[in-house]
């Protein structure tokens, strides 16, 4: 176990979000796109938060993005980096930055998705330097 790894709590899965987690288990990152207004959003919802339409679809994401902000939680027993990453597709998502030097993280860095196992649920998308 590298020094930055910590046990990852499992995400609760419900019928609305199950496709996201099924894709994550297959190593794919999905985002929701609204067919009515064309906007992509995250976290994924059945109902578009921009226009209220129920015509939302799962679309594939490249898994590439940039660091919008981050913080290394130094006081934790195993320090880790929480971050917001802006996907190339548009939405910004909360995540962790992993498999990298925590002291070398900078806002604006290019990152790519990696999936990390959780305690007893589907893997969750995290990001590492591209």
């Amino acid at each position, binding site marked *: 176990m590298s020094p930055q790894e*910590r046990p990852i*709590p499992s995400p609760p899965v*419900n019928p609305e979000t199950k496709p996201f987690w099924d894709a994550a288990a297959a190593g794919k990152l999905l985002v929701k796109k609204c067919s009515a207004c064309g906007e992509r959003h995250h976290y994924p919802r059945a109902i578009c938060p921009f226009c209220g339409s129920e015509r939302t679809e799962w679309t594939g994401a490249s898994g590439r993005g940039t660091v919008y902000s981050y913080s290394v939680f*130094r006081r934790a027993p195993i320090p880790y980096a929480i971050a917001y990453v802006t996907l190339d597709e548009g939405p910004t*998502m*909360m995540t962790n930055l992993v498999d990298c030097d925590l002291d070398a993280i900078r*806002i604006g860095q290019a990152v790519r998705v990696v999936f990390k196992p959780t305690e007893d649920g589907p893997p969750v998308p995290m990001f590492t330097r591209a």
Partner: protein
Amino acid sequence: MSIKGKAYLAGVFEHPTRKADTQSLAQLHAESALGALADAGLTKDDVDGYFCAGDAPGLGGLSMADYMGLKLRHIDTTETGGSSYVIHVGHAAEAIAAGKCDVALITLAGRPRAEGMATGTAPRNYGAAAPDVAFEYPYGPTVVNQYAMAAMRHMHEFGTTSAQLAWIKVAASQHAQHNPRALLREVVTVEDVVNSPIIADPLHRLDCCVITDGGGAIVVTRPEVAKRLNRPLVKVLGAGEAVKHQRGGKIDLTHTGAVWSGPAAFAEAGVTPADVKYVSIYDSFTITVLITLEDLGFCAKGQGGKLVADGNLIAGVGRLPFNTDGGGLCNNHPANRGGLTKVVEAVRQLRGEAHPKVQVKSCDVALAHGTGGSLATRHGSATLIMGRE
């Protein structure tokens, strides 16, 4: 309809305890209520409106009305975290103006210290049904590392420094030295803050508020009642509230909901930031104060670092005295919710009842602002402008 001048803050009370080993949660609420009613010169039988938030035990307003023996014709349990109580004052003024109640009681209490709660450093989980939880909780979002991300982005965009943030804590500590109830009364320097251990980059231990037990209460009443009471008259001039969230992934960490609640409150009050003599600004962390002051219009966006530096927030020294009780950073942050005590100190200032060492001269207009939830995800913002009559 405006609430300007339609309601008065007749009683305020800050519970003196900072660690409640021997009181129950309901008891702390009720002790606070009695304190505020005594301050106003009213009794519990005068209360016909009750306001509380998620910190109240059991079924909230129902449980507390039962415990205290209140007979109510108006109840409001609006929950926006630590900003709830600032919102409650505005809602109480609305209810009074609409004739729904005459004497509104607002209470807050909690005992996170006695319960050993890791307030800022353990990830918060609001339950599996929270729509965001699966997409946040696995990443270990704590209160402190979320606010830290806002600080990190502000530093990136505007060049804000840790030393500038430290001045906010320095000012709070300068005030707290005069408050015998303050949890932390030691005066600190910028060097003390920036040399304290990093909790979550870029926030240091001394950028974070205290964890305390206790509570507080506020009594809001209609003008006819307030003018019968033998207390200085402090009235509501304007109130604004807003909810800021993640906007479907269009994240922006450099603004708070104060950009909406502030202008609404100023417009209703008919005053501008230049008219405000004293501000109580929610200070969960130093960064909370800096961003809020920008959003309320006390300086341009990005200039908050310069605004707070060099003692400018210290009463008797700078041009914008803030949190003269020592605030959440030094005095008290009861139940991890600091909105109520923000209103209490603003009322003390308007009455001329703040500690003489920190009393603002000719304090005729004051502002209290609450921020509840998380700057980094979703939060409630509430701005309240009050005036002395």
